[in-house]
């Protein structure tokens, strides 16, 4: 196993074991600002890990970022790892990161679906769901982005356990979802939530389960517009943006709807690039440019959250 992050390649894809080893090394090397939290266990009993970036204080307002809820979207985990390193390398140098971290905490869950991710390396590279199984149900896995309480079981999710968008037997039935819900609810001061998916180059906000606009739709629209512009200026990749139901399709039981309904006003979902031809199989050569552009959009959202306390 690697003994330090210095030999870790941020421009390659990695296995779950390599990522978890990197997390341990990363936390050891930056223990002044980063700590590792275990917020639960997956269905197959793997640890669910969250990196906490904090410069002190207690129960500070916080920003939650997750990646990898759909296991085949490898570019999202790779982007999460790069962002973690960026945060520690920029703190004390970059004004935005320094201002944010002097006032807020950042929680980063790089592998939201560890069982599914391990399975993409061992058996099926195109696996999307988690690996839960239940007596009498022939197919394996629940779509973790349909298992949240908000709009659960509605249009845009499927009751068929064999479907890729199977919502599961009940809201938060999946340990990977319940762990995040419990953590965020017990923290009680998360002010922004960013869930990173791929692909199709979109930045979206609630709602997914209905066409009804959220109360601060105007604000989210303009914030998404600014974030997408900041992203575009890095490598010229164009995103579309808007609410999930009007930009993409109706989807129920999704993370950002639950976050918004739980009081997190700044909830966004990214669909990262595929540059029009790779889909989930984005070559590793595009990891760094994808992470660089995504970071600029995320910074835009973080700054707005910092400057608009609620």
């Amino acid at each position, binding site marked *: 196993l690697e003994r330090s992050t210095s030999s870790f*390649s941020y*421009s*390659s*894809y*990695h296995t779950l074991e390599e990522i978890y080893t990197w997390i341990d090394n990363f936390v050891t090397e930056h223990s002044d600002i980063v700590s590792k939290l275990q917020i639960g266990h997956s269905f197959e009993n793997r640890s669910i890990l969250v990196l906490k970036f904090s410069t002190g204080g207690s129960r500070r307002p916080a920003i939650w970022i997750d990646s990898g809820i759909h296991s085949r979207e490898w570019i999202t985990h790779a982007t999460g790892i790069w962002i973690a390193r960026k945060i520690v390398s920029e703190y004390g140098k970059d004004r935005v990161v320094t201002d944010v971290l002097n006032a807020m905490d950042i929680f980063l869950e790089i592998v939201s679906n560890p069982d599914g991710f391990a399975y993409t390396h*061992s*058996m*099926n*590279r*195109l696996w999307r769901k988690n690996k839960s199984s239940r007596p009498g149900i022939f197919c394996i896995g629940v779509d973790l982005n349909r298992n949240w309480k908000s709009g659960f079981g509605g249009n845009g999710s499927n009751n068929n356990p*064999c*479907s*890729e*968008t199977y919502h599961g037997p009940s809201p938060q039935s999946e340990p990977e979802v319940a762990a995040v819900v419990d953590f965020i609810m017990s923290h009680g001061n998360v002010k922004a939530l960013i869930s990173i998916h791929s*692909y*199709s180059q979109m930045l979206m906000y609630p709602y997914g389960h209905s066409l009804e606009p959220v109360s601060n739709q105007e604000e989210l629209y303009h914030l998404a517009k600014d974030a997408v512009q900041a992203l575009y200026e890095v490598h010229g990749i164009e995103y579309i943006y808007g609410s999930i139901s009007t930009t*993409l*399709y109706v989807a129920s039981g999704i993370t950002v709807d639950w976050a918004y309904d739980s009081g997190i006003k700044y909830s966004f979902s990214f669909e990262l690039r595929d540059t029009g*031809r*790779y*889909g*989930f*199989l984005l*070559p*590793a050569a595009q990891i760094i440019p994808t992470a660089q552009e995504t970071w600029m959009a995320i910074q835009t959202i973080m700054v707005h959250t910092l400057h608009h306390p609620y």
Partner: protein
Amino acid sequence: QMNFTGDQVLRILAKNEKQLSLLRDLEGLKPQKVDFWRGPARPSLPVDMRVPFSELKDIKAYLESHGLAYNVMIKDIQVLLDEEREAMAKSRR
């Protein structure tokens, strides 16, 4: 590891809502055969669908018979997977 040799990803541009629903019907017609990478959402957005090699002929015939324009976005998934795996091994070395 599952092998995806010959599997393709087709990018389909549905002209209208009717064509989108024809694509949605496919999930029922071919359960667990077609894998939507980008699901049928709205006419302005492409639909990307992974099709197993064994189903390619049927699916392409279905698309053509319903006037659904498509192109092959990924010609052979396994080729990309092999490249990805080689890149990971190289990086590890």
